[in-house]
């Protein structure tokens, strides 16, 4: 088999289309863990990965939270970055053009304080070079007393509808795991028009310094990610997969190809690598390579044949 054949074979085996976004592999980057992609260019060939999901972007620049922002926990970490980002205008003016040099779908993760802000962000991002938007609905809804959009079906739905009305791009909705009924949330956003669902965002956690009797994080609480959350994430993907038709992007603790395959068997059509990028800067690529080997060794012809195939 020639090198060319090998290449096209890989493309055929791993390529997927999620919400109309064509990807060379089913392995994307999780928002906030891969910067804007450019930070990783010495370690990963951006032209070969599934998609880059950029850092959470807001209407205005944000300087993020004060004090210590990360804490290591057993097999995981807490973060309270506080959505530090340069704002959507700066993203469009200086970062997006640089990303245009790469042949990889760019998905912009967005956060708002109000339903209207989500709509405005989606409208401004409705430009060439952006392949889709991912709504981070774990943010507090300022007008509704600060309860996160993502913990209330009605406000989550209104965010999705507002965004759909303001863009032609595929809309991915990223669910928060900090809810009592993840299936109800997933059904609500699907009903409102979500083209795909990402799950999970981080789990709310806390660490205390027992020598100082103070919280470790400046923000007191933060989001838990990394291998520690994987079983919860796999369970949520599996539950949601039973209840919705739209494709699911699974994430939460994926470090190896084996982790990713678990998510796919649970029902994820694609996966995202987050915290693992901090441990192994080449993780997105090595997870994809491992999936390819697994598909081949399992005698399958395409990665799609894994999706939702767990036998109960």
């Amino acid at each position, binding site marked *: 088999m020639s090198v060319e054949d090998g290449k096209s074979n890989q493309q055929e085996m791993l390529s997927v289309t999620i919400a109309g976004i064509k990807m060379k592999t089913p392995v994307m980057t999780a928002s906030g863990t891969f*910067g804007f992609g450019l*930070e990783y260019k010495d370690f990963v060939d951006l032209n070969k990965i599934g998609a880059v999901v950029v850092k959470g972007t807001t209407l205005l620049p944000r300087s993020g939270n004060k004090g210590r*922002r990360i804490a290591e926990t057993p097999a*995981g970490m807490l973060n309270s970055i506080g959505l530090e980002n340069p704002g959507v205008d700066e993203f469009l003016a200086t970062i997006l053009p640089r990303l245009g040099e790469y042949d990889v779908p760019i998905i912009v993760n967005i956060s708002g304080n109000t339903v209207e802000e989500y709509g405005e962000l989606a409208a401004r991002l409705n430009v060439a070079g952006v392949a889709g938007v991912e709504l981070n609905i774990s943010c507090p809804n300022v007008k509704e007393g600060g309860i996160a959009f993502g913990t209330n079906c009605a406000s989550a739905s209104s965010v999705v509808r507002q965004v759909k009305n303001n863009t032609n791009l595929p809309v991915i909705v990223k669910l928060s795991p900090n809810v009592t009924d993840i299936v109800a949330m997933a059904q609500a956003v699907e009903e409102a028009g979500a083209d795909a669902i990402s799950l999970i965002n981080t789990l709310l956690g806390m660490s205390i310094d027992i020598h100082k009797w103070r919280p470790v994080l400046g923000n007191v609480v933060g989001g838990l990610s990394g291998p*520690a959350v994987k079983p919860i994430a796999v369970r949520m993907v599996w539950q949601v997969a039973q209840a919705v038709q739209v494709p699911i992007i699974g994430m939460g603790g994926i470090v190896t190809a084996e982790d990713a395959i678990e998510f796919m068997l649970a029902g994820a059509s694609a996966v995202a690598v987050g915290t693992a990028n*901090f441990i192994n800067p*080449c993780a997105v690529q090595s997870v994809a390579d491992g999936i390819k080997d697994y598909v081949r060794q399992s005698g399958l012809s395409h990665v799609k044949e894994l999706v939702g195939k767990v036998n109960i």
Partner: protein
Amino acid sequence: MPKMVVDGRIVSNTEISVNVKELVLYAPEIAAQAVPGQFLHVRVANSYHPLLRRPLSISSADNIAGTVRTIYRVVGQGTACLAALSSKDSVNCMGPLGNGFAIHGQRPLLVGGGMGLAPLMFLAGALCPRPIEIVMGGRTKEEMFWKDMFHVMCNTIHVTTDDGTLGSRGVTLDVLPDLLKNGAFDMIYTCGPRVMMEGIVKLAKEYDIPCQVSLEDYMACGIGGCLSCTCAGNDGSRKKVCTEGPVFWAQEVMP
């Protein structure tokens, strides 16, 4: 310069003082590129606990031998894992990361406190043959193993210890006013505890001497992707300690 991730073979990992070890790694690709002030981001164990890498300054790089050296204090789980490794092992590390010191001026003054002396070692080597004066501070005599290490590279060494067991009793800041009054320094480099560096920057401003500081913060990726380690810049922007630092001009980030 491209950043790299390599499995470095451990040449030696020896105790040089109580709870302080010197790690020499064979990592020729990193050694060839490293400049003073840059750091390694070290995967101390092949496990999920500890999960994150540990940032450690490069204390010297030997391009001919292909080695890089770090000097680290065992303070917690991660550094204890590293301390347990021996010359049969290899350790995965990213590097060289961050922005190094600017080689500037002819009469440099170095001021280091505690493990902050680690990056200044590499710097002192690069400043040769300029005459180097250094002020080094620590808690007690055992911590001042640095004195012998800097000896060959520096013309004048001032030592301070909190308990007065070596050099003058007190902190580095105590000896600085006299030095600045009498010296003809045209550049100051400092690395150490935040309060120390703030005091030095204030004095540097007073005497109108350019000054660089090397900052430390909690970091995850080490390459600007996670925004764990950003600090407030004086121009209103956020600065990433891992990529825009750890070395900054004082006026960029210090009060």
